[in-house]
């Protein structure tokens, strides 16, 4: 079954077509990679899929339901979560609190209860802290859980974003360049984590520049160039596609 699908999706910025008629379907479990040269429109596509941008045309479907133009927090409630290429960390919080915000959807939202120091809240809070610790452990950040996020190195913050996204217990996870700024060891650990999550049934859509990681990890690769889809298939097929080689190497196909 399809988790997330785009149909003829596109958007213009000031007369420039940033993304043009992208159509794809991501499977319910597995890794779908979106690659392409800089400025190909990968992050713009992510922003439309996650509701940050309203698409100029086309439709987005989540488990068969039309969610085009739906606001991000409602998409999150429907099981779509994401990370950001340029870090969007809550820098005034600890690592743990960042992840606890990720768990916002499963918390009680009766503000009136939060006005008083109710004992029942203390228990909920303790469980939320423990749940956050579990997600931090997933990305090897358990030992820095109570450090301020602002004191953590770049690679750790990339993983913190993943932990926060996982805390929302998503069914579809959009990862925007998770390996950027990570060293070889970190990238390897990250790839293993992504593969494990996909094998556990998560539908992962990955934008990534690390080609070795993309090719070894992905079940399916979509290639964008100048806002258009130029290839869609298994990693080995895409690798040998003349149009893809042309886009990356700048030669005529």
């Amino acid at each position, binding site marked *: 079954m399809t988790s997330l699908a785009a149909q003829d999706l596109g958007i213009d910025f000031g007369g420039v077509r940033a993304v043009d008629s992208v159509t794809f379907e991501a499977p319910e479990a597995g890794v779908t990679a979106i690659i392409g040269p800089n400025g190909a429109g990968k992050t713009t596509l992510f922003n439309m899929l996650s*509701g940050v941008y309203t698409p100029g045309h086309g439709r987005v479907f989540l488990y068969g339901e039309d969610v085009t133009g739906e606001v991000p927090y409602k998409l999150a409630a429907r099981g779509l979560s994401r990370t950001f290429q340029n870090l969007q960390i809550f820098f005034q919080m600890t690592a743990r609190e960042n992840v606890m915000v990720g768990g916002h959807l499963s918390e009680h939202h009766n503000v009136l209860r939060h006005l*008083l120091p109710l004992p029942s809240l203390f228990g909920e809070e303790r469980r939320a802290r423990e749940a956050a610790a579990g997600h931090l452990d997933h990305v090897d950040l358990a030992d820095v859980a109570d450090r301020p996020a602002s004191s953590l190195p770049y690679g750790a913050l990339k993983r913190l974003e993943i932990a926060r996204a996982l805390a929302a217990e998503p069914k579809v996870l959009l990862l925007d360049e998770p390996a950027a700024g990570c060293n070889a060891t970190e990238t390897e650990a990250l790839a293993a984590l992504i593969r494990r999550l996909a094998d556990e049934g998560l539908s992962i859509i990955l934008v990534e520049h690390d080609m070795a990681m993309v090719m070894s990890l992905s079940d399916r690769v979509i290639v964008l160039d100048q806002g258009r889809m130029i290839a869609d298939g298994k990693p080995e097929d895409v690798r040998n596609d003349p149009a893809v080689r042309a886009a990356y190497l700048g030669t005529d196909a």
Partner: protein
Amino acid sequence: MAQRFATPLVLVAVMVVVWFAADSNFILRVASLVFIYGLAAIGLNILVGDAGQVSLGHAGFLGIGAYAVAIGPTTLGLHPLLSMLAGVVIAGLIALVVGRPVLRLKGHALAVATLGLGILISMVITNEAWLTGGPDGMPVPRLTLFGERIRGADNWFWITGAVLVIGALIASSIKASPTGRALRAVHDSEVAAMVSGVDVAKYKNIAFVISAIYAAVAGGLLALFDGFVTPDVAGFLTSVELITMVVLGGMGSVLGAVAGAGILTALPQVLTAFNEYEHMVLGLIMMVVMIGLRAGIVPSLIALVSGRRRAKAR
């Protein structure tokens, strides 16, 4: 759990010390004013320090609370406490309705829009003289509780002190709750808060309503305490003072808001020794504090002390 009770307990301790140290009713009266403005600043800090949204018109809500306890008993014959409740409800509703469209704005646009709201409320108070007494203001009937008229600096000290402690306890509880976390998330990154499932517009509005309610309660207390209200209570200068209390004391710090209120309220009384240079000295102190303690008085001092302790442990 400790973070919810620490600040209220510190406030109680300070109150007891002030109570025993005070050698005149004048000091108790100044302390009451500090408690009242501290309450308003705690509320505003939830909007500014936690949620990261500015309001330059918050005195408008102070004014609504103050005039409610002036108009309610004289014109409608309501009990002062019932009038105060009415003021709180009106301020909360205005914040709820105005908050949605206004809090969509960011930065300077939000500052100007909230400034406009404050000016609007203060203009209504000034112009509707048949109801509010106009620019000259109006007297406020004394508060009676259990058939007793409340008077005397000592009674007011404990009444305003008790309300401040309750306000600090509520603010500390919010801070430690999922709501507080959601507000701080909105402050740090709206887009990350959104994709984490936080309804950003709703939480901004919650902070706005809560801060308006704090201001209205403080305004009601201020009017009852003074026995008289003028439109100044809702004026631009008061709004600026409230924001200054929050920033000076420390954004996001409950105790900081009270400390800021303390400095802005009590210091001018102390500085009267400087005669006409009083405001100059006050301004100078504010500048030096902000340059030296950038995060505000309380957070900067906490960082300083914990930094020292860490250095010693090493």
